């Protein structure tokens, strides 16, 4: 019995060493065979929204276009899946690791492992709260405060030189989420320059259409006069439009609407004149990510903080842009 067991164990050891040899050989061949082919390991948050799906597609398409081999892992909204994925990228010895953190904290250990293995890490879309910023080379993503400021600036320009109070209602994103906090802050800071602009009601609409509609209904019922609606994303704005129309008012005319995101449905409403202004929050950061990956691989040091290329849309611009919207 013991003898048989030991034979089996020797067999197992032989087999595993053979496998390791095989894997090693594979590694070296891919390394020498295609020196220019960079391997990128990417761990995505999940597929929780249309925005995220567009984000994934952009990364996959641009990796193909840039000739970068992409190892893609979907974390399905769970941090432990993401940590497992990053560990597996480290053992596979990929050239660069990129990921959108599910949550902000708890990354130090696994990022330290990547650093010790000499693999540079790039954060996309969301940041981490690690004190040690040497754990990642760059953070590519939108600046939510800046988005709020852009929204506020448009409003300030609209009402420049006019007198009389402007009553603003605000539909916030999910309470405690970074985009909600920052978009509120940027907006509030900017409109503070004009004392006529007043946020009279502000409440969370959870980034969803249904909540956006329900909260707007109550805003309309409980506020004597609403001039402007600022919604932290398109979906809440679209829900609010339903409520405004049901109350017999004209969205975009009776109540001016500003939103953030610029997804296809939002852009459609903008081109129809139901929304007045949209600040873009683009998921299409694939091409920029591939540029950073190449830069890192060729020994360059990218900026620590890189902003996604984003713009703003007026109703006229929306009409020309709408046919090209992919998401």
């Amino acid at each position, binding site marked *: 019995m013991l003898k048989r067991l030991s034979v089996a164990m020797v067999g197992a050891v032989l087999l595993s060493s053979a496998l390791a040899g095989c894997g090693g050989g594979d590694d070296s061949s891919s390394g020498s065979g295609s020196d220019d082919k960079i391997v990128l390991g990417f761990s995505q948050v999940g597929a929780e*929204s*249309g925005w995220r799906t567009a984000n994934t597609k952009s990364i996959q398409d641009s990796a193909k276009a840039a000739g970068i081999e992409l190892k893609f892992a979907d974390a399905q909204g769970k941090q432990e899946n993401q940590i497992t994925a990053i560990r597996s990228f480290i053992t596979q010895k990929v050239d660069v690791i990129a990921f959108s953190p599910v949550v902000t904290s708890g990354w130090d250990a696994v990022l330290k492992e990547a650093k010790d293995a000499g693999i540079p890490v790039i954060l996309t879309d969301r940041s981490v709260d690690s004190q040690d910023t040497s754990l990642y080379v760059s953070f590519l993503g939108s600046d939510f405060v800046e988005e709020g400021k852009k929204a506020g600036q448009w409003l300030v320009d609209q009402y420049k030189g006019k007198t009389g109070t402007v009553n603003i209602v605000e539909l916030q994103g999910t*309470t405690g989420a970074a985009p909600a906090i920052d978009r509120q802050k940027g907006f509030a800071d900017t409109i503070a320059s004009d004392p006529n602009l007043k946020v009279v009601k*502000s409440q*969370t609409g*959870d980034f969803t259409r*249904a909540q956006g509609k329900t909260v707007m209904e109550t805003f309309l*019922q*409980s506020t004597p006069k609403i001039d402007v609606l600022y919604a932290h994303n398109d979906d809440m704005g679209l829900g609010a439009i339903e409520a405004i129309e049901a109350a017999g008012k004209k969205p975009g005319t009776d109540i001016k609407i500003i939103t953030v995101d610029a997804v296809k449905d939002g852009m459609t409403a903008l081109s129809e004149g139901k929304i007045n202004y949209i600040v873009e929050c683009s998921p299409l950061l694939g091409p920029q990510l591939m540029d950073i990956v190449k830069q890192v691989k060729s020994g360059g040091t990218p900026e620590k903080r890189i902003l996604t290329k984003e713009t703003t849309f007026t109703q006229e611009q929306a009409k020309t842009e709408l046919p090209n919207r992919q998401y």
Partner: protein
Amino acid sequence: MTIIKHRLFWPSVILVALLVVNMFTANQFITVRDGHLFGVLPDILRGSAPLLLVALGMTLVIATGGIDLSVGAVMAISGAVACLLIKDLGNQNAVGSVLLIMAVAIGASLLLGLWNGTLVAVVGIQPIIATLILMVAGRGVAQLVTDGQIINVQSSPYAAIATGHFLSVPIAFLIAIAAVVLTVLLTRRTALGLLLESVGGSPTASRLAGIRARRITIMVYVVSGGLAGLAGLIYSANIKSADSISAGNLIELDAILAVVIGGTALIGGRFSIAGTVIGAILIQALQVTVVAVGVPSKATLLFKAVIVVALCLSQSTTFRQKVFGRFKSRPAVTAEVPA
């Protein structure tokens, strides 16, 4: 004194109090405009329809000692199926086709309910686990149906079930009330209610007494699924789109809360449909009040919690005796202390 002792006295008082607050904060509490009711009260009634339907099904399930956690997922699936089919219609405003599609979506929801009922009554899995399966998997199914995207429809007959009016009353509320009336008639004018409570009290004793306990259990889950499906249609019609990620998200908890506020015991064997109706409208009124009064977002959940805690305490006989019966019972208490 007897009215104060009624189980639904305090929930009703809080509901009325919330409505009174809204009378002062709202521009129009209730008025007639363009030939239909308009104002904050019709808004609350209309908005409470999905929760009311879901809570109604939940009441029956809880009466048998079970629980249905999958209602939110069923809502998402029903809305997703309906919007997907309506989107492919040549003419989205064709009333007949839309009605047929709604029937298909509700049919699918009934099947999901049958699945739950079978797991509970035939396979013998605990209700909380059996329905948890569909709660988790069902939302995935809904996302699969919509391919993770929000599906928009432009169908006025479909939108009408959520935003339309019939005889100047919101159709959504009429649908919910019709479901309530039908359920009351079936459970209180026939022996069905008695059988439900009997199964909830003791399935084994009921079976030995000649009641088909298994059939009753399957039936309540089927009804709960169907009502959740109907709620899902109203939810998605309200925003003219299927949002499979947020449709009915966490509504199972609100529904359980509505049932509990209404005085139905979670252990089964006793239920109050009137209580559930008050509970569901109260929860919706609370949500509207929070926004109308301008409670900051960060404090909203705490505000709601305080109201719910106050409500639950008011329903506890032990608590009421301790607080309100204090002066009367004090001599008795002090007398017992030395002993």
